[in-house]
């Protein structure tokens, strides 16, 4: 299994006798070598710090096995299961939407925004897990959190126009006691021209 994304090559490998995921950031030779090195190091460090923080906060994310700055590689736990994108096409989609909202609010409550929480970045294994923290940052302002919600809702609309996920998702998110400010910021965000037009 191999996946070649914009940011990295993701592969299933053997690590100390068990299955694992290896993520190697793409080399971009169009960038100045110093800039390339700086960005790869920054992003690798940030990604592993985010995962560590989430793990220690008890959020369901893959365990971190190894970080190799030289090879720009991260090795993580392999989760057997399907993506949320597929899960939403099953009869249990309501349950999954509620779990996703809960998971995202947990991430936010630890002072982290995911950065790219599309339906492909959640995995349904024994439970629902969040994956891919390549664009995540330590950040607790309402607008960045709202932008996470927007990204999720957008991916929901794009791929699952047949289900009415928006209300279920936002209602489950609003259970979190700091959600009010975020949901207000989401309203402001969605009033901006671009998002309205993009949906039209």
């Amino acid at each position, binding site marked *: 299994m191999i996946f070649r*994304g*914009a*940011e990295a090559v993701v592969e299933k490998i053997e690590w100390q006798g068990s299955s694992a995921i290896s993520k190697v950031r*793409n*080399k*971009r*030779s*169009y*960038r*100045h070598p*110093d*800039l390339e090195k*700086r*960005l790869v190091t920054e992003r690798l460090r940030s990604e592993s710090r985010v995962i560590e923080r989430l793990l220690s906060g008890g959020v369901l994310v893959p365990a971190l096995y190894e970080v190799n700055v030289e090879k720009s590689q991260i090795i993580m736990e392999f989760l057997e299961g399907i993506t949320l994108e597929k899960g939403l096409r099953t009869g249990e989609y309501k349950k999954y939407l509620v779990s996703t909202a809960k998971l995202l609010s947990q991430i936010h409550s630890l002072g982290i925004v995911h*950065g*790219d929480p599309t339906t492909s970045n959640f995995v349904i294994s024994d439970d629902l897990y969040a994956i891919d923290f390549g*664009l995540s940052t330590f950040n607790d302002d309402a607008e960045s959190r709202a932008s996470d919600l927007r*990204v999720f809702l957008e991916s929901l609309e794009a791929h699952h126009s047949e289900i009415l996920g928006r209300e279920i998702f936002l209602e489950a998110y609003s259970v979190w006691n700091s959600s009010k400010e975020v949901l207000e910021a989401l309203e402001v965000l969605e009033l901006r*021209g*671009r998002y309205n*037009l*993009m949906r*039209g």
Partner: protein
Amino acid sequence: MSEIVIGIESTAHTAGVGIITSEGKILSNQRSMYIPKEGGIHPREAARHHSDKFPILFENAFEDANLTPSDINLVSYARGPGLGPCLRTGATAARAFAYTNNIPLIGVNHCVAHLEIGLLEGATDPVLLYLSGANTQVIAYASEKYRVFGETIDIGIGNGLDKFAREAGMGFPGGPKIEKLAQGPDLLDLPYSVKGMDMAFSGLMTAAKSKLDSGHSIETVTYSLQENAFAMSCEVAERALAHTGKTELVLGGGVACNERLREMATIMAEERGVKCFIPSKDLCVDNGVMIGWLGYQMVNGSYQITEEDNRVHQKYRTDMVEVTWR
């Protein structure tokens, strides 16, 4: 039978008149650029420049193409986005010419024109990295519209470069002057601001200016500025390519004349295994040819000219256009 289209561009600094055939043969590409004596663009001054220049641009275009107004089958002008006074000047010229000679008139979107001129280079369904003064967008076609996949969340890349150049005392336009001065290989640490598929430039420009003020050479500062700004743009384009699964990249906009940007985009495309189409510099900058070409594509497709086509639209966004001609 071959049809002949005249295209009129006046969204910002450039007044342009282009003549192109329905087969894509460019018969003339006349341009005149307003250059402010000091400071940035003054919309009314720019509009005055355009209204002064349009008569001679038309005259030169017809002479160059060896045609007369009666040979023209369609008049196309840029409805927007752009500066109101400038847009109205171009629209007035287009209407006057069309009505006097009894030729159909169509208004088109300037940003879409930058993309569609890339199709003339051989692309079929590309991602456009569109870098100009005010516009900094990554655009691609998806379900009946050209959609903006990524863009600047503060200032346009070209306006940013111009602002830096102005503050460093280089004058307008800043991009080519920065390109000339830029000298590596030393790289200064400057902000690199990519957020998902969006980018931000104002912090980068401010940081570059402060590096200059703290005594770094103009050669190193301009070099580092270019390296960061263009790598950010290419990274966003790369993300859009991965996201959409498209296999063609087109460059457009005045900043796409920069050799270093062209080089970076070429390398990126090669590493991703996608084709890179870079229009000639005459077609990357604002020009009438692309406006004419898009107008013809629309009319030749199933686009119906409406009353709306008579009106300029300052905030005519890329994703407002219903693409009925593809």
